[in-house]
C-alpha cells in the first residue's frame, strides 16, 4: 500500500509550511491545556508553565520528530519523481535523436537521389547543392519575463570589511548593479580583497504567467564587477577577507569606478532622504537596522514611562516595524486573538499599514538569535501559508520590491482586527549616524556567559537586553517586558530614597500598584474575566547593569528602600516588583 501511495503521489496536499504550522499548533495547544490545568490546580502562572513544559517534554525534540515523519515520504517521493523525470527526459531525447537521425538519413537519401537524377540528365549536369535555409524560428526567445526594475540589496553583516548594515535599492542597469557597487554601498573599501557569499533571487514572470522564484547561493568567490542585474534581491550572507591576499586583488586588476573608490575611505553620509548621491550611482538607503531599533526602543521607553503603569501579561509582545509601512513604530500587541487564532507577522504588517509597495519583509530577532533572520514574501497568494506566529522582540523590516506582483492582490488581504497599541510612531528617516552592527552570529559562535546563569547564553551586551534578562531571574523563558525606561531625571550617583521619593510623586500610581489587581482575561484560563485582588508586597532591586551582573546590588522591601541612602550608580536599573508570599 505504501509503495502504491509513493507511486501515485503523496496524498498529503499541504505545503511544508502548512505542515510545520499544523505541528506547531497541535503541540502548542497541548502545552496550553497543560498550563491551564496547572493553573486551575492553584499554581501561579510561572510555575504552571514550567510544570506544563516538564510534563510535555522537549517541544523542539517532538516537533522535529513529527516533522521528519511528515516529510519523509515527500522527500522520497521527490527523489523518485526526479528519477522518473530524468528517465522520461532521456526517453524523449532518445526518441528525438532517433527521429532526427531518421530524417537526416532520409534527407541524405533524397539528396543522393537528386544528384543521381541530375547526373542522368543530359543537358543539366550541374548539381545544385541544396541551400540550407536557416531555420525559421531558430533564435530562442528571450525570457518572457520583464526583468525587475530595481534590485534590493540587504546587508546585515558588518565587519571591518563592510561597515554598514542596512537595505539599499539600486537600479538594475547592468553597469550600476554590480557586486562592486553594492559592496561599496555597504562600506567596502575596494583595496581590500574579500570573498563574498550571497543569496540572490531572480523573480520573473509577468502577472499573467506562472511566477518562478529561484534562490541561488553563490558560494564561489565573485569578481567585483559581476553584474547582478536581473536579480530582484541580493542578500549578503557572509564576508571574509580573501584567503590569498598576496595575489593581485580583484580591486587592483579591475578598473574601479573613479568616484566611488575615493569616497569609500570616508563612508558617505546619506542625505535627509536617505540618498547617497556622491557614490557615482543612485542608491537609496531604506533603513539602518541598528540605529532604528535603538531609537525606536528609546522612544518606546520614554512614552511608556510617561504613560505610567502598563499591565502586561505574558501574552503580549513588542515588535518593531519599519520600512515600507504607513505607521512604522514599536507595536505592543496580544499574541492570541479572542478567537484563539494566533497573531502573525503579517498581522503586524497590516496593523502597521503595509503599503501597496510592500513586497516582502525581513524578520529578525536580536534577543533570540536562534530565531535567525528570514525574508518572506508579502503577498495574498502566500498569506495563508505564511502565518508565522509572532515571536518576541521581533524586528520586521518591510521593503518595497520590484513591481512583479499585482497590487490588487495586496488589497485582498484581510485587515488585522486584533487589538494593538502603537507605543510610538517613528518615521524612518535616514540614519543620523552609522553604528556598527554587532553581528548576531557572533553570539552563537562565542556565547557570552553570565556568572551564575548557565541557562542564559548568547546575551547581547546592549543595555536593554541585559535588563530584560536580568528581570527574568525566575522565568527562564524570558517573557517579561521592560515597560519603564529612562526617566526625566538624570541624577548620577543618587541615593535610593531620593529616587524613589521623587518617583512617588505620583501617589495614585503607587497606590494602585500596591493593591494588585490582575485581570485574568486569558481565554484559556479556567475563569476568563476573573479579577483577583490581592494585597501585594513590593520589593525593590537595584541592578548595576553596566557591570553586567545578574544579581542586584541592593534588594530591600519597599518601605525600607524609601529610607535607604544606598547609592545608585550611574546607568543603574531599579526595579519595583510585586511579590506575593
Amino acid at each position: 500500500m505504501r509503495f502504491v501511495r509513493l507511486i501515485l503521489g503523496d496524498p498529503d496536499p499541504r505545503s511544508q509550511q502548512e505542515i510545520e504550522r499544523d505541528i506547531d499548533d497541535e503541540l502548542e495547544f497541548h502545552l496550553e491545556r497543560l498550563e491551564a490545568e496547572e493553573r486551575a490546580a492553584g499554581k501561579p502562572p510561572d510555575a504552571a508553565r514550567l510544570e506544563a513544559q516538564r510534563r510535555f517534554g522537549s517541544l523542539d525534540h517532538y516537533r522535529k520528530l513529527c516533522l521528519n515523519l511528515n516529510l519523509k515520504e515527500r522527500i522520497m517521493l521527490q527523489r523518485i519523481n526526479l528519477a522518473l523525470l530524468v528517465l522520461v527526459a532521456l526517453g524523449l531525447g532518445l526518441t528525438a535523436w532517433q527521429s532526427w537521425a531518421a530524417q537526416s538519413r532520409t534527407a541524405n537519401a533524397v539528396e543522393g537521389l537528386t544528384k543521381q537524377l541530375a547526373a542522368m540528365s543530359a543537358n543539366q549536369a550541374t548539381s545544385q547543392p541544396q541551400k540550407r535555409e536557416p531555420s525559421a524560428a531558430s533564435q530562442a526567445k528571450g525570457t518572457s519575463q520583464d526583468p525587475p526594475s530595481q534590485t534590493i540589496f540587504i546587508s546585515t553583516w558588518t565587519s571591518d570589511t563592510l561597515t554598514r548594515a542596512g537595505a539599499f535599492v539600486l537600479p538594475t542597469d547592468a553597469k550600476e548593479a554590480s557586486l562592486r557597487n553594492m559592496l561599496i554601498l555597504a562600506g567596502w573599501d575596494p583595496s581590500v580583497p574579500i570573498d563574498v557569499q550571497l543569496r540572490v533571487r531572480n523573480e520573473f514572470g509577468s502577472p499573467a504567467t506562472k511566477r518562478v522564484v529561484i534562490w541561488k547561493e553563490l558560494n564561489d568567490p565573485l569578481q567585483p564587477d559581476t553584474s547582478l542585474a536581473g536579480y530582484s534581491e541580493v542578500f549578503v550572507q557572509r564576508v571574509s577577507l580573501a584567503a590569498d591576499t598576496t595575489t593581485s586583488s580583484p580591486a587592483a586588476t579591475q578598473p574601479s569606478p573613479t568616484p566611488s573608490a575615493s569616497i569609500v575611505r570616508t563612508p558617505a553620509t546619506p542625505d535627509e532622504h536617505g540618498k547617497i548621491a556622491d557614490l557615482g550611482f543612485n542608491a537609496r538607503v531604506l533603513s539602518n537596522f541598528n540605529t532604528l531599533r535603538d531609537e525606536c526602543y528609546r522612544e518606546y521607553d520614554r512614552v511608556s514611562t510617561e504613560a505610567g503603569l502598563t499591565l502586561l501579561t505574558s501574552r503580549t509582545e513588542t515588535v518593531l516595524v519599519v520600512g515600507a509601512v504607513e505607521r512604522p513604530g514599536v507595536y505592543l500587541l496580544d499574541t492570541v486573538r479572542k478567537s484563539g487564532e494566533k497573531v502573525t507577522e503579517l498581522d503586524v504588517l497590516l496593523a502597521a499599514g503595509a503599503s501597496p509597495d510592500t513586497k516582502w519583509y525581513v524578520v529578525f530577532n536580536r534577543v533570540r538569535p536562534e530565531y535567525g533572520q528570514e525574508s518572506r514574501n508579502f503577498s495574498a497568494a502566500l498569506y495563508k501559508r505564511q502565518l508565522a506566529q509572532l515571536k518576541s522582540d521581533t524586528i520586521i523590516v518591510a521593503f518595497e520590491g520590484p513591481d512583479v506582483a499585482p497590487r490588487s492582490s495586496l488589497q485582498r488581504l484581510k485587515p488585522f482586527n486584533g487589538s494593538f497599541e502603537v507605543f510610538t510612531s517613528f518615521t524612518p528617516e535616514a540614519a543620523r549616524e552609522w553604528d556598527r552592527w554587532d553581528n548576531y552570529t557572533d553570539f552563537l559562535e562565542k556565547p557570552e556567559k553570565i556568572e551564575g546563569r548557565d541557562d542564559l547564553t548568547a546575551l547581547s551586551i546592549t543595555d536593554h537586553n541585559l535588563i530584560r534578562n536580568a528581570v527574568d531571574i525566575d522565568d527562564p523563558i524570558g517573557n517579561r517586558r521592560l515597560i519603564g525606561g529612562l526617566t526625566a531625571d538624570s541624577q548620577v550617583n543618587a541615593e535610593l530614597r531620593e529616587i524613589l521619593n521623587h518617583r512617588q510623586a505620583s501617589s495614585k500610581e503607587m497606590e494602585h500598584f500596591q493593591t494588585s489587581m490582575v485581570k485574568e482575561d486569558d481565554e484559556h484560563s479556567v475563569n476568563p474575566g476573573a479579577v483577583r485582588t490581592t494585597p501585594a508586597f513590593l520589593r525593590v532591586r537595584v541592578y548595576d547593569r553596566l557591570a553586567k551582573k545578574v544579581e542586584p546590588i541592593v534588594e530591600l522591601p519597599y518601605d525600607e528602600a524609601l529610607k535607604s541612602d544606598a547609592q545608585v550608580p550611574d546607568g543603574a536599573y531599579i526595579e519595583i516588583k510585586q511579590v506575593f508570599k
Partner: protein
Amino acid sequence: MYTLLIDPITEHPMPKPPEPRPQPTLLQGTLDVMLLSVLSRAEAHGYAIAREIERRSNNVLAIEEGSLYPALHRLTKRGDLTADWRISETGRRARFYRLTTDGKRRLAEQRSLWDSLSAAVNGVVSDDPLTSPSASFA
C-alpha cells in the same frame, strides 16, 4: 542616568522542582496499542488522549506527553488513524484523531498479542509453587 522599572507582573518565590513520578518502563509498541485502544472508544485530540491514558491506568502511567505526537502521526501515516482539525472545547482549533477500519483490525491483533505476552510474562513472574507443577531445572 538610571532606569526605573515598575513591573506589575506578579512574582512568587522560586517553586521547588516537583518530585519526579516513578515511571514504569514501557515495552516498545505499547504506546501504539494504548493510543489505538483509547481512540476505539471515541475520537479525541492529543491532550484528551493523555488524560484518558492517565485515568485508565489509575495515574500509574504518566508518559512524557509530547511523545504521543510522533506516535499519533506515525499511526496516521500508516493508515490506522485519520485526523482532522476542529474547534475544541476551549474554542481553539485542535487536531482530532479517530480509528480507521485498518486501525480497528490492528487494535484487535495487538490486543491479542498483548494478552498472550502479558499472560506469558505473568506465568514466569508469578510462579506459585502451590498452583504450578513442580519442575526441575535439569
